[in-house]
């Protein structure tokens, strides 16, 4: 089966795995994990510069040949998220932004009204807005309606590794919007990524699941394979679930060995 790649806002990526750069033990491991993941689009955050540590994160990502997807992590209001996106555009010369507007410190769940407000404003300013959203199909549709060229619903809270807690909602989101659906947050291991793709997601974003694994580079390879496997299985069409067995070997031609 030919995979025509993931297309968002007119840009096509060969990989359907987006990688978060947070949590890696070192830039060396990050670089190796990027290579193992095959990812072409990776997130970065914007923070105060530390004059002591002149980070080479930008250089590492440039060497890896990946596209940057700046995020607005840590923003709690539409105003802060919009300003952060504007600063990211200045810093990285990209209109792309992974829009996060957090409404609760413990769960890091999105603040829906602020998220929608920020998305609308950033789309108006010409940004390519990829919103981190709840698994609510109605909110996903509203975000697509205001011009987001993809939506990024959570499977479960960021960094929780709880997988996809409501697969039915993810499947409903796939039906509710025309734009690509990128499962974001909650992935714990490879089977979660495969499930996301089997549910019809167009891509998966993973950060902690890879960066905080005991062997991040090996997990990056596992996620890559899982996304491909899930995509293939979705296209292949799974069998329906049944309560009782259905013999896979026909009874016809069964020999009669007589009474025992």
């Amino acid at each position, binding site marked *: 089966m030919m995979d025509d790649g993931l297309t968002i806002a007119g840009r096509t990526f060969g990989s359907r795995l987006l990688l978060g750069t947070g*949590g890696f033990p070192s830039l060396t491991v*990050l670089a190796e994990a990027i290579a193992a993941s095959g990812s072409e689009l990776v997130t970065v955050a*914007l*923070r*105060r510069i530390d004059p002591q540590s002149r980070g080479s*994160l930008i250089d590492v990502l440039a060497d890896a040949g990946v596209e940057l997807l700046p995020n607005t992590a840590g923003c709690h209001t539409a105003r802060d998220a919009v*300003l952060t996106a*504007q*600063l990211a555009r200045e*810093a990285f010369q990209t209109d792309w932004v992974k829009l996060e507007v957090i409404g609760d410190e413990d769960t890091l769940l999105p603040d829906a009204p602020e998220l929608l407000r920020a998305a609308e404003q950033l789309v108006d300013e010409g940004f390519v807005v990829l919103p981190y959203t709840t698994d609510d199909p109605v909110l996903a549709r509203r975000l697509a309606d205001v011009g987001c060229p993809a939506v990024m619903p959570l499977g479960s809270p960021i960094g929780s590794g709880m997988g996809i807690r409501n697969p039915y909602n993810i499947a409903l989101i796939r039906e509710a919007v025309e734009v690509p659906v990128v499962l974001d947050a909650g992935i714990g291991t490879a089977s979660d990524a495969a499930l996301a793709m089997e549910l019809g997601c167009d891509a998966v974003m993973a950060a902690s699941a890879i960066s905080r694994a005991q062997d991040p580079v090996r997990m990056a390879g596992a996620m890559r394979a899982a996304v491909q496997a899930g995509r293939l299985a979705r296209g292949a069409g799974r069998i329906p679930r049944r309560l009782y067995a259905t013999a896979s070997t026909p009874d016809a031609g069964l020999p009669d060995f007589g009474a025992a």
Partner: protein
Amino acid sequence: MIVLNGEHCDVRAGETVAAVLARLDLALDARGVAVAVDGEVVPRAQWQSFALAEHARVEVLTAMQGG
């Protein structure tokens, strides 16, 4: 006196954003750097001309691992 990345900094009113960046060893073509003053983006093209007011709140930001 201004507030640079949350800390008071002995920069006189009238100094430019570029002058503040120079204190941080940042050149005008520094990659992956953005500046906000009092909650507004200062585009790179204005770094040399943008004069800071007394008590200006300056944020100098760059890429960090995240997301």
